[in-house]
């Protein structure tokens, strides 16, 4: 099962490596990891996408909680939540036909073209992982020059939240 684990962690040097080290030392899967400071500069918010059986996820949550730098965490996938990932993708767009088709696909997926040259378009697209995957699939006939994905971030729906 895929889980999204959200963590509030002390914004200190080495905190990220403690989390990353834990995953590699205990052979847990890590699909993506994002981290950035919150509105409180002493805290960072980290989002980890991982997979595992219920027993493994339980251990991951417990082991993360055991790290001294981890202040609080929640498994977003336990309740209703919103997840988003951002992608920047550079596509070859040299001919008129190519430029039109890429523009059309970009509109369908509600992306934005954020940079244009005579031979390329760079598109920004935000959404769930599946939407970004579908967009890459839809671009199959075009030459993708570069793909940059942010990794998943997420937040609980409604009143529920992860804060101090």
């Amino acid at each position: 099962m895929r889980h999204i684990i959200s963590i509030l962690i002390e914004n200190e040097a080495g905190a990220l490596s403690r989390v990353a080290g834990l995953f590699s030392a205990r052979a847990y899967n890590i699909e993506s990891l994002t981290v950035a400071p919150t509105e409180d500069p002493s805290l960072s918010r980290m989002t980890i996408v991982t997979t595992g059986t219920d027993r493994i996820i339980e251990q991951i949550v417990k082991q993360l909680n055991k790290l001294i730098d981890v202040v609080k965490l929640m498994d977003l996938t336990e309740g209703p939540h919103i997840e988003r990932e951002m992608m920047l993708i550079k596509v070859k767009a040299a001919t008129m036909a190519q430029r039109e088709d890429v523009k059309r696909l970009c509109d369908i997926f509600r992306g934005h073209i954020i940079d244009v040259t005579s031979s390329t378009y760079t598109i920004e697209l935000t959404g769930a992982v599946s939407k970004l995957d579908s967009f890459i699939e839809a671009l199959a006939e075009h030459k993708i020059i570069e793909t940059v994905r942010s990794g998943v971030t997420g937040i609980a729906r409604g009143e529920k939240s992860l804060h101090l």
Partner: protein
Amino acid sequence: MELSGAEILVQCLKDEGVEYLFGYPGGAVLHIYDALYNQEDVKHILVRHEQAATHAADGYARATGKPGVVLVTSGPGATNAVTGIATAYMDSIPMVVITGQVSTAVIGSDAFQEVDAVGITRPCVKHNFLVKDINDLAETVKKAFYVASTGRPGPVVVDVPKDITDPAVKVPYHYPDKVNMRSYQPTVKGHTGQIKRAVDLMLSAKKPMIYTGGGVVLGKGSDELRQFVRHLGFPITSTLMGLGAYPASDKQFLGMLGMHGTYEANMAMHDCDVLIAIGARFDDRVTGKIAEFCPHAQIIHVDIDPSSISKTITVDIPIVGSVPDVLQEMNHLLKNSNKKPQKKAVEEWWNIIEGWRSKQCMSYDRNSDKIKPQAVVELLHEITKGEAYVTSDVGQHQMWAAQYYGFDEPNRWINSGGLGTMGFGLPAAMGVQLAYPESTVICVTGEGSIQMCIQELSTCLQYGLPVKIVALNNRYLGMVRQWQEFFYENRYSHSYMESLPDFVKLTESYGHVGIRIEKPEDLRAELERGFAMKDRLVFFDIVTDQTENVYPMIAQGKAHNDMHMSPYSAPAQDSERELS
């Protein structure tokens, strides 16, 4: 009061009440060593290798329950300490290790004796710190002691760059009384509802079993445990790490369980209907085959570390809390409950257990013309009236010491259980002897293990530590040889110790007493002679039977009821195999 970083460090140790600092100087910690000069409060013990500093601090911590403290230099000082830090980590021993670091200006430039100490120790510490500002130093040290000694204890490393300890830079000193960390608040008190459920379940048990571990010793819960076990009248077994928490000489004690546990303890684990696990972590050397672990039992698990619960074995009633707190509450409930344990069923259960006990699984050949290692340990118990502190290295001798010494008190049995570190025994014994100068401290070792930290004989002379080293010398890496006999068709690949030193001469050259014992008839007299030398370190080089094995033995990945038995135990029944 304005102090330099080096002076702050030393003052922090004084304010923390540190008696002994185990260390080794070097470039990055010279300012700190200068601050240690001309003061008497913190006594520095100069070891001969940084690994020994950590093991000595570890032995001190295991015997006293207070954190052990270490000071080493950067680079090789730190890397040499890593084995000892990992040893402490695996057995949850409170320890604070101060490592020197190159100056902040050159960190990351591959400076002389630079190593990323925080990075290299990260997987084997409870937590670690790099001090980047002298103003954070005192609070960081306070945090280190707090984290190391609370909750599930463990080693904490404080990495201190040389410029932070510069004697020319002074700042006001204040050592905080306590620290509050929003990200670290260990649970002590168990959940009342869960404790009630657990008590109800144990009172309904027909074949109960109590399984205790190192958490009882570390949590100082031995008194509460004794009260608990005696009230219930249930059988109790212990892991290697928990020995002594409950007296080995008591009738309710079935001996150690697991890979080299007793027949009765392992069989009772297999057949019990309620298992009460207290401060134990279901280690693979204890559980054997996971799928067949306690197949009939409902399991109660008391542990201070939530991540120990349901890690390998799923439990029915988890209780997160410190062992003495939870046991106190259980004892209170049991005393005031109108329900009593299932007396008749438990009596029948004891009859079954006595049947297993009558196999006398710990029997060995007492008429051999060779010295039997088991006999040596039994004699040690007799000569020291069971009151010695016993450290060990790792291998067969460790198991025999655990099986045959019979520990009646906690904190007396000091060994590397989790990491299994050869070389642990002698330096650990130094730490214990410093803590208890009047007590007898024995290091039970082998001719293989002792050579891994033998340089510490020199430290023992410098500080007058009269440790008794008992080397069971079978000219083999005995446990490796045993596995090769059982599982590799007697192919003794590299398990023979050739070119052994003359341990008597070696010991004498270090200024101590060496005694070699070769015949069973000399054993008692020679041991008594050596132990009578109260103020001397004596190294007993005891030539033991080369082919002796540790029994019983559950092969790796086998179930509790599948044991290799000693050929000298009573005849086999049912499913167990004999191996002669």
